[in-house]
């Protein structure tokens, strides 16, 4: 099974040197999303603190396979007075 590496950028850079064996690219993407979800679930403040979460997935060739970015956007808005 191919090996994929999930590198984390949440303010600081964390390199995954060991990687995980997964079926294929689609599985790796799914795992990246689940991984990101798990991290955010544990520590939602991470997005406020670090202005975003990024997970880069590389494969055994060292090439970038896919990336996941989660960010809060400033979306304050008020309805105009009078509807």
């Amino acid at each position, binding site marked *: 099974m191919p090996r994929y590496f*999930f590198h984390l950028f949440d303010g600081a850079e964390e390199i995954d040197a060991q990687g*995980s064996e997964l079926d294929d690219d689609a599985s790796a993407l799914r*795992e990246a999303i*689940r*991984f990101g979800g*798990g991290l955010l679930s544990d520590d939602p403040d991470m997005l406020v603190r670090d202005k975003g979460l990024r997970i880069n997935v590389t494969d055994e060739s060292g090439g970038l396979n896919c990336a996941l970015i989660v960010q809060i956007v400033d979306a304050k808005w008020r309805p105009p007075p009078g509807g």
Partner: protein
Amino acid sequence: MSCNEPEGHVHREIDAPFRWMGDAVQAHRHGRLGIFVRKLISHSRLSADDQAAIASLPFSIKTLEPNDHILREGERAEICPVLLSGFAYRQKISADGGRQIVALKIPGDPLDFQSLYLDRADHNLQALTKVELAIFALKDLENLVAPRPGLARAVLVDILIEASIGREWLLNIGRRNALTRLAHLLCELLYRVEQIAGETIGNFELPLTQEQLADLLGLTPVHINRTLRELEKEGAIRRVSRRVSIADIATLHRIAQFSDIYLHRNQSSAVV
């Protein structure tokens, strides 16, 4: 080197991967079943007569490979297995194939007291590592326990403690963050193993793969991998290729915010 040991506690560093009981069965007047009797008396007082009665039940020895089924969901049990060496797990599988390990069993543990009372298995019981089982006929155990209140109580307490551990697992998976969650499980496993071993164990090697830890803790293997990395950075565990061993239980205990009430250790039973 742990500096947290209670006074007078024996500490022996075991460098080799943890491989225990079955390999080195201490001379015990109950022979191969000694570890099973020790497990029962660890939480329940049993008269010498009750202990002798258990130890003289006929049994056969069965060896299984990792992931071999001991009992399948839906089956009606006819045997009562006890783990003599190695580790086992209970697992349930969702309709879309999702696996959840719902319990871990360690050497000395009876694996299916439940079938003394319930009709069908509601989960799969499988070997985690290579295991050695003592196999009793379920009928023999039923007949033994019926007229012996001390034994019946020990069976009940064993089931209750497993249920308590299950409740803690629910909290663990439901509410703890990944680092605390993983640390907690590792702590629990070491404490349970040390209890039956009767001594502290240095360099305890985890019998679970990362995939199995993921199936147990409700995290993806990628997250498990990263959390192991964090625990290693804290000095709590050591990783050598695929093997994880516990380096510093005190640090693990602190990260896990561990409280051992749910393990019901030092449980003294009322009536002999």
